[in-house]
């Protein structure tokens, strides 16, 4: 499940800008919109048409809103035993000191001023993503939601469930298409509850995850890597080459999972020591069947190398 962000904002222009900026910086975020305070509270309390609304991991709240303003919404959130742990960040054009103080008094987690310029706005959204959705440990989704509780992980979504022996199987999915990420997550969830699926959206992020760099300092060593070939920034072939040239990483089974069925891609992948090459089927049923067979084979039958290989 992707990270859920609720944006409470009445200005269509700011709404649009925020949506676009989030799409650029982190396609795994699911951004929900409420255009006034009443709608925001209905969303948070799962009332009316929001019966199935997810609990947001983060709320971005404008102060000046029609019907019920942001200060009231903030007060409601922070007085509600069920909602108060949701980090709530004020995002407003007001720079009035009284608004700043009042917000912190009402226990806003942080106060941000909306910049006027497009680029500054974009970079603010990026820093919200880099800090709140990447660095910060967010409180876990409350129990009572569906079982597939999502835990935030740097730059992507992660699906958590613990297996019978208490040790989850760590799988790193390197995939840039949000749709395929979603499908893979759901298929794994159905196939095997003890898999912890980590997602990297490009090759650079995948290498950072594997090398535990930056925000990935706490990343586990994956038991299996599922690698798409065509990726932004650093493509799957390069990632594969890096993995297989690294003494530490090369023992991790790396499965190419791609829509390409070009003979050259297949040969090249095996030359680069891919452990196996799978073609992504287009049809949903076939896709689920494939994920199931990855689970049945790689995560059930195959003896994987020891977790603490070479430190």
């Amino acid at each position, binding site marked *: 499940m992707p990270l859920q962000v609720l944006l409470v904002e009445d200005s269509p222009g700011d709404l649009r800008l925020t949506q676009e900026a989030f799409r650029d910086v982190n396609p795994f975020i699911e951004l929900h919109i409420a255009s006034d305070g009443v709608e925001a509270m209905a969303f948070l309390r799962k009332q009316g048409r929001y019966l199935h609304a997810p609990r947001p991991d983060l709320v971005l709240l404008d102060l000046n809103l029609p019907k019920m303003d942001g200060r009231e919404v903030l007060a409601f959130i922070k007085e509600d035993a069920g909602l*108060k*742990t949701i*980090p709530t960040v004020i995002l407003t054009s007001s720079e009035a000191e009284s608004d700043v103080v009042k917000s*912190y008094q009402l226990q806003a987690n942080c106060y*941000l001023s909306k910049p006027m310029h497009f680029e500054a706005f974009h970079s603010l959204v990026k820093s919200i993503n880099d800090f709140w959705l990447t660095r*910060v*440990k967010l409180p876990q989704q409350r129990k009572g939601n569906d079982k597939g509780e999502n835990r935030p992980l740097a730059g992507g979504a992660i699906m958590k469930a613990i297996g019978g022996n208490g040790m989850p199987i760590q799988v790193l999915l390197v995939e840039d298409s949000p749709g395929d990420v979603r499908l893979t997550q759901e298929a794994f969830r159905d196939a095997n509850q003890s898999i912890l699926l980590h997602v990297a959206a490009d090759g650079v992020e995948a290498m950072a995850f594997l090398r535990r760099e930056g925000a990935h*300092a*706490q990343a586990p060593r994956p038991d299996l890597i599922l690698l798409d070939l065509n990726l932004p920034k650093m493509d799957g072939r390069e990632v594969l080459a890096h993995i297989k040239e690294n003494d530490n990483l090369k023992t991790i089974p790396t499965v190419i999972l791609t829509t390409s069925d070009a003979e050259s891609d297949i040969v090249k992948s095996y030359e680069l020591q891919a452990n196996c090459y799978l073609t992504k089927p287009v049809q949903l049923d076939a896709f689920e069947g494939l994920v199931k067979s990855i689970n049945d084979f790689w995560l059930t039958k195959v003896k994987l190398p020891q977790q603490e290989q070479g430190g």
Partner: protein
Amino acid sequence: MHDKETSVEVLLVEDSPGDVRLTREAFRDTNPAIRLHVANDGVEALAFLRQEGGNADAPRPALILLDLNMPRMDGRQLLAHIKEDEILKTIPTVILTTSEAESDIVKSYQLRANCYLNKPVELDAFENLVKSINDFWLATATLPPQQS
């Protein structure tokens, strides 16, 4: 240059001398305008915040970085004191701890920590984290005014 005008006061509440040292060095590299004050436990921190004892001239911090596990008064207790105090509760308080226990995360947000960060073990990652605390909290976020 007048120090009072330009310096940013940060209170680090941390009992491990190694982590204090690391944090100090990382902040010095990142933002020389930061004046890092250190309290080694919750009792000392509260005295600093309330300007008690030898702390009559202690400045009000713009940001508090708070470890959870400390002697005498631990971070949870200190956090509760800060957020129950009308004057202190607006100071952004960031939990910075090695604990990854879900119970600690939830408890901290319940006690109104502004955010929860895990202290990474590796040096580079630690420096990186300090940099992102600086970039976000001290460069991006609007903090409550110093005089309240």
